[in-house]
């Protein structure tokens, strides 16, 4: 390969370093109005009455709308493709504006004014009376007999799911050793630097047009159509530059509301720009989970029988429903594929609570799973005095394993990732060095492995489209529905097209922005799927362009089709340059007898889902008296198949590792007993700053997956999955104290070290 595998600079880099990249709030709009939301101050209840008269009378206010004005039907918000199976469709459980309020921040009314300040002042002038219900914040409370239902008829269960490979009781007869443990993880938030924002207007063709910072323009078009109760084709979605998403923009959280505003105001343009505080509370979060593990191990160190029970706290609305909790369960199975005769029985329940709504977030249930599973594996290895690395290698998934959803493993470099990590972190040498430590400052080594899918097949459709048009100088536009949100996908797609057609990278210009009136179909940026699923469509379109170029060259330059090749922008025949692509392109546009401009417009429906693998290795120092962890060395090693662009790939790994470190040590959305979020800002939330972040190392074990367009597998989300467990295991290694609840804060450490006798009460004072 000549273009794939090289570190080309990102296509949108120039726009971004010069400040010319226009994000949704940077686009000038004539006559723009501004909307602000009146939100619920209570976590569970009903609005008995609302008074908007003062807001309506405020000069500059153009409209005030409440739940009384909004459509009465409910709609779903999850960024999943539409399912033709009614049982698999997302749960439609919310209205655009609500009188039945289910979390602090729920949308009740909206004020639209000439500027943001006036809109905000209008919101302040609204008053309402409420009937309050008990606030349910834990699975125990929400699932208790007789608990008030957050959504009528649900018993507060969003969904449940079970995986049964073998039978636990039967398989457990082989086990000699039995283990049980509970792990908990907190609510965290994506903290994309760009807050959620959108504006809407009715365009010259009477379409409701929404310009939004979204990962999923096509799916959001459908959701807006559903929410307004109009034909989906009457909605147009435009996606400009997006300032980070991490899954929070794989949900339609404000597009339906802003579309409703413009609809009520005869098509006048209205902007709804969330504050940082609104982004924390009223977009999406990562699910808090309680996870229970039960494991039977044979004398040979084989996992014979496993149970995994998961309670996922979803918050007030279903969003992605049960699917994230289900992914938590499948992640364990994919990492340690049960061997013949062994059992894996998992069950998970997703629960409604009166908290901010959980949805997709980088890793989609896998960071939770791997924290629990890889901490548990570490504890078992220690208890059985097995080498933790050898214990894992004995049990990891093998080539040819078939997942519960029928996906066969056709490439796996997990063992090699683990062995490479062991070498890079100098595991054996440092283990010996750190043995028998005493004193306040201690070093520890930890590791954790993961498995991660590439896309959502066969649970959901994966279809993607691509269009390539050759210009009269041989350069080409590539259009895809796949969304660039910072990960570098556009650059990777340009490399793919250039590779397959046989032209330099610079010949391909990827149209970065999606407009559902123009852009070929694409489902969007989620599930680390685009370079795989859209990549297959791009390859197909590029193959068609190449075939058409060869055919046109043969016909017009009197060549044998079978002998023509396209290399580095030249038409070659028998090793000789015949004509440049630029000349051929001009000919194909302008020759008055033969003109036939070359283009391709294709779609592809993938039927695979390759699994990516990897591991985190960490070396850290614990200051016991301060409850302080300093990471000295941290490395992620990834099998993501063929690496398309090493520099961009490393960037993905760094960012994911950083998010994983924050998950391990710092991040947590604090919610009080009344359901109020206490730290909805970037300082109190403890988002890592520059000096908080250690140097991050990325390494790869390249495999080649035959199902993928260029051997590539998922990489966007995987780096986030394993750091937390590796850090927890390294703290255990250093101190012999196990922390089974994230984040591992100084307070938890001081309590844990005191209980373990590492800090005497005198020292603690």
């Amino acid at each position, binding site marked *: 390969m000549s273009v794939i595998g090289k570190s080309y*600079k990102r296509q949108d880099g120039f726009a971004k*370093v010069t400040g010319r990249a226009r*994000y949704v709030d940077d686009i000038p709009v004539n006559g723009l109005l501004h909307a602000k939301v009146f939100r619920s101050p209570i976590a569970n209840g009903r609005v008995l009455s609302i008074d908007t008269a003062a807001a309506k009378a405020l000069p500059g206010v153009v409209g005030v709308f409440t739940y009384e004005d909004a459509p009465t039907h409910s709609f779903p918000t999850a960024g999943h493709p539409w399912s033709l199976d009614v049982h698999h469709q997302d749960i439609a459980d919310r209205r655009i504006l609500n009188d039945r309020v289910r979390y602090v921040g729920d949308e009740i009314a909206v004020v639209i004014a000439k500027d943001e300040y006036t809109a905000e002042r209008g919101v302040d002038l609204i008053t309402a009376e409420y009937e309050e219900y008990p606030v349910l914040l834990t699975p125990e409370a929400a699932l208790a007999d007789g608990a008030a239902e957050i959504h009528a008829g649900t018993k507060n269960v969003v969904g449940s799911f079970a995986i049964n490979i073998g039978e636990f009781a039967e398989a457990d007869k082989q086990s000699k050793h039995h283990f049980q443990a509970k792990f908990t993880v907190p609510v965290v938030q994506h903290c994309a630097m*760009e807050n959620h924002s959108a504006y809407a207007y009715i365009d010259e063709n009477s379409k409701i047009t929404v310009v939004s910072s979204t990962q999923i323009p096509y799916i959001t078009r459908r959701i807006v159509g559903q929410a307004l109760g109009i034909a989906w084709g009457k909605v147009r979605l435009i996606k400009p530059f997006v300032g980070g998403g991490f899954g929070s923009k794989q949900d339609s959280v404000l597009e339906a509301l802003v579309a409703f505003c413009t609809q009520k105001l005869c098509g006048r343009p209205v902007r709804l720009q969330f504050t940082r505080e609104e982004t924390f509370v009223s977009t999406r979060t990562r699910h808090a989970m309680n996870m229970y593990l039960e494991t039977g191990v044979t004398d040979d160190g084989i996992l014979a029988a496993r149970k995994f029970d998961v309670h996922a706290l979803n918050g007030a609305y279903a969003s992605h429903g049960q699917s994230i909790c289900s992914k938590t369960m499948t992640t364990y199975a994919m990492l340690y594929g049960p061997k013949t005769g062994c059992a894996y029985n998992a069950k998970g329940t997703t629960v409604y609570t009166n908290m901010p709504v959980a949805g997709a977030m980088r890793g989609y249930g896998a960071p939770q799973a791997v924290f629990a599973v890889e901490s548990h594996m570490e504890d078992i290895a220690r208890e059985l005095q097995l080498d933790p690395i050898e214990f894992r290698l004995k049990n990891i998934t093998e080539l040819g394993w078939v997942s519960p959803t029928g996906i066969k493993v056709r490439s796996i470099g997990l063992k090699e990732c683990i062995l490479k990590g062991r070498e890079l972190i100098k595991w054996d040498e440092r283990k010996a060095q750190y043995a028998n430590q005493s004193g306040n400052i201690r070093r520890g080594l930890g590791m954790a492995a993961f498995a991660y899918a590439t896309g959502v097949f066969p649970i959901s459709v994966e279809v993607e489209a691509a269009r390539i048009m050759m210009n009269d100088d041989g350069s080409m536009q590539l259009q895809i529905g796949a969304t660039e*949100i910072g990960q570098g996908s556009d650059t990777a797609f340009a490399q793919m097209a250039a590779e397959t057609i046989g032209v330099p990278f610079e010949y391909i210009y990827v149209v970065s922005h999606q407009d559902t009136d123009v852009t070929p179909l694409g489902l969007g940026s989620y599930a680390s799927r685009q370079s795989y699923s859209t990549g297959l469509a791009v390859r197909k379109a590029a193959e068609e362009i190449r075939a058409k170029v060869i055919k046109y060259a043969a016909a017009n330059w009197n060549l044998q089709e079978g002998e023509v090749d396209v290399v580095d922008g030249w038409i070659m025949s028998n090793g000789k340059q015949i004509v440049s692509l630029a000349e051929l392109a001009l000919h194909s546009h302008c020759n008055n007898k033969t003109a036939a401009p070359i283009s391709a417009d294709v779609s592809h429906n993938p039927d695979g889902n390759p699994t990516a693998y990897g591991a985190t290795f960490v070396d850290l120092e614990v200051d016991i008296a301060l409850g302080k962890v300093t990471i000295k060395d941290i490395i992620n090693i990834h099998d993501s198949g063929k690496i398309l662009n090493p520099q961009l790939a490393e960037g993905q790994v760094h960012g994911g590792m950083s*998010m994983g470190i924050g998950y391990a040590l710092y991040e947590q959305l604090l919610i009080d007993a009344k359901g109020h979020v206490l730290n909805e800002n970037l300082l109190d939330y403890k988002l890592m700053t*520059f000096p908080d972040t250690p140097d991050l190392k990325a390494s790869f074990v390249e495999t080649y997956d035959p199902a993928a367009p260029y051997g590539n597998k998922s990489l966007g989300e995987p780096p986030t999955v394993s750091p937390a467990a590796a850090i927890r295991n390294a703290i255990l290694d250093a101190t012999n104290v196990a922390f089974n609840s994230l984040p591992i804060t100084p307070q938890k450490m001081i309590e844990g070290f005191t209980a373990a006798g590492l800090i005497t009460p005198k020292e603690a004072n």
Partner: protein
Amino acid sequence: MEQKITFTINGEEKSLYVDIRESLLEVVRDRLELTGTKHGCGVGECGACTVLINGEAFDSCIYMAVWADGKDIRTIEGESCGEKLSVVQTAFLEEGAVQCGFCTPGFIMTTTALTESGREFSRDDIKRELAGNMCRCTGYQNIANAAEKALQTAKECCGENCCGKH
């Protein structure tokens, strides 16, 4: 209440009436239409709105517009000319320090102030100096590399006679 202020923005002198409650960020984005400077939090936490005021990096979201009277303001738009990028911009591009790009203008402005300070910075110094700019995409890794490279390039380019154009 409005007040007249006069200042230079990217080398050009401007006079305008601003509401005394307006932040410099609002004036830069909404009045001067320089949207390269971003609004990330509005309360001085994230640094996406960083501009240079008399050569020093400030969060423009918590800098009142009236304070800008008589000052020299620089935003990301003034750092490149056509296709020509500054040393810092080039380093960010080459080192893969850009992902979603939303924090990028702020980081570039803060780093630019470092390159023009004439001081030397260790990698730990760089991390501390850039502590006021947050990024969720990169883990700061390639940003540290880019800042190191920009500082090195600026030093090699001018040495002690720094032209102040980085």
